[in-house]
């Protein structure tokens, strides 16, 4: 709770010391008098602490101001967009886990083979290819040349009353996932390598246990522990990284909303979007910590 308040305060202070929000909102051709009038109207000329207290009381009541462009409360707009972003980030995470962990396990258990180089190469690839460029390239190849996927948008089909995305989610999710895939491949590889050299694995081998049993019971289970915290971090990376991908593919999520709000100078909408994204990410860190404690009994709150 204290952390939450701190983050709220931080977002707010940063917003105000880094510049006058009014300059974001007015057009470049506004006269000084017009700027001053707007500042007066929105209360930006009051002392900072008073503004913060005001912002806080409003925020607690779920009032984050109104969007200028949509003429609607900012919070409603933000909440409306959250599911699409979570959906995209989850799809990307799922892809990354499937590909990254598999390649990492294969690479780690066969050191110095082609599979191993593949796992390490994938890690490097994920770090060197920027998501926003990969998105463009995927559109050029798979949408324009091959015509397999739509170039943009979120198309849905209805299943049991739920609107689920069709194949239009594949390209954006893949573009978003590459970095995470690389990271997971790298970490899984080194975790598996490390566990393979532990004494209990040697013991299990010398007992003559089957390969499958050694892997499932000893190696994979113990390599999974460091992976959990990495997956938590990666998910929050995916959530904020979606700002590029959602812009490129016009995916109706938070990132798209933020980019749009920034370019239309919609101050309250920017503030609300940034706040809610931070909220989701911080919540995620907490959940990761909790799961970590459950999985690894050596870690307990002091």
């Amino acid at each position: 709770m204290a952390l939450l308040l701190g983050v709220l305060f931080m977002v707010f202070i940063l917003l105000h010391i880094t510049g006058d929000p009014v300059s974001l909102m007015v057009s470049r051709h506004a006269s000084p008098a017009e700027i001053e009038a707007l500042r007066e109207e929105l209360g930006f000329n009051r002392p900072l602490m008073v503004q913060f207290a005001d912002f806080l009381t409003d925020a607690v009541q779920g009032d984050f101001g109104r969007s200028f462009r949509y003429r609607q409360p900012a919070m409603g707009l933000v909440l409306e967009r959250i599911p699409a972003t979570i959906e995209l980030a989850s799809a990307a995470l799922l892809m990354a886990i499937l590909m990254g962990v598999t390649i990492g396990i294969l690479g780690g258990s066969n050191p110095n083979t082609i599979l191993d180089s593949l796992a390490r190469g994938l890690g490097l690839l994920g770090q060197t290819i920027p998501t926003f460029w990969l998105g463009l390239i995927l559109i050029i190849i798979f949408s324009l040349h091959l015509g397999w996927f739509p170039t943009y948008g979120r198309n849905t089909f209805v299943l049991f009353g739920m609107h689920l995305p069709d194949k239009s989610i594949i390209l954006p999710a893949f573009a978003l996932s590459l970095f995470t895939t690389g990271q997971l491949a790298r970490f899984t590889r080194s975790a598996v390598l490390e566990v393979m050299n532990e004494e209990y694995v040697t013991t299990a081998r010398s007992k003559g246990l089957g390969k499958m049993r050694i892997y499932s019971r000893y190696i994979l289970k113990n390599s999974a522990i460091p992976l959990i915290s990495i997956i938590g971090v990666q998910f929050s990376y995916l959530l904020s990284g979606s700002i590029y991908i959602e812009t490129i593919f016009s995916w109706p999520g938070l990132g798209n909303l933020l980019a749009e709000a920034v370019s239309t100078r919609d101050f309250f909408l920017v503030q609300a979007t940034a706040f809610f994204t931070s909220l989701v990410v911080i919540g995620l860190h907490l959940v990761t910590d909790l799961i970590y404690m459950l999985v690894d009994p050596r870690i307990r709150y002091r």
Partner: protein
Amino acid sequence: MEKENGDITNNNSTGLIVDEQEDRSIRKKIQDLWRLLWRDKSGLLGLTIFLILVFAAIFAPMLSPHDPLQQNLIMSRQPPIWAEGGTTEHILGTDNLGRDIFSRIIYGTRVSIMVGFLGVSMAFSLGMMIGLVAGYKGGTVDNVIMTLTNMVLSLPYLVFVVFIAAILGNSLLNVILIFGFTDIPIFVRVTRGEVLRLREEGYIEAAMSIGQKTPVIIFKHIMPNLLGPLITLATFEMSAMIFYEAGLGFLGLSVPPTVPSWGNMLAEGRQYLTIYPWMSIYPGLAIVLTGFGMNLFGDWLRDVMDPRMRLMKK
């Protein structure tokens, strides 16, 4: 009187010897490093790519065949040299306004290298100072600094940066300052961790117990040991910063749109993606190459700076 004189000369001479030894050991260290680099081809490749970029940034006016801002509507939308209809005049083609893409990419290295280098230098120096204070002083100071640091680090970085950039507006100085400031926490955290570890080392305890002054301990005993991990971190952070700068440019939040930068080129190229794909392909390749080089070099540095790994490499 005489005795004092003798003492002074004595001090001087030992001082000289120490200096010479230090000088020799530094030269030997550089030679060692070079030998290690020569043996590890991927590290060498990374360094080479990085140096080429720095070279391109410095000598951009001489290297680029055309003026990057020169518009020429007759020559616009030329495809690259190997595509049908390409000319040797514009090897990577021209954009929608007839500007030479190759020249614009060369000029783009200036923005990237400048933001990366200056941003990292700022975060490095400020972060190291703050981290030293936190780690060395401990107590309340440490608590306050680390709470703030963790708070910033728990925010989604990209959203945070986009947010500030949107308010500050487009300019090179703003972009450098944004990255310089927002990247401080990482350096603080790493420095503090290292300082805490170093404080437990025998030679630091010895220096403390013979009553050496705090600045001496910090600058002579702690700082040299910090440089290794921090320089490695700086390499990775610089490559990340170059990425983020391009990303901001892509969203139209970095340097003004008239300045040729990789991110701006991608943003323009995106509008013509369906008809002139080369406008987006090549600036992106430049970013990929940069990231590739810096990561290879960073990986090598990390291995070399860790003495245990170095033994394995030898």
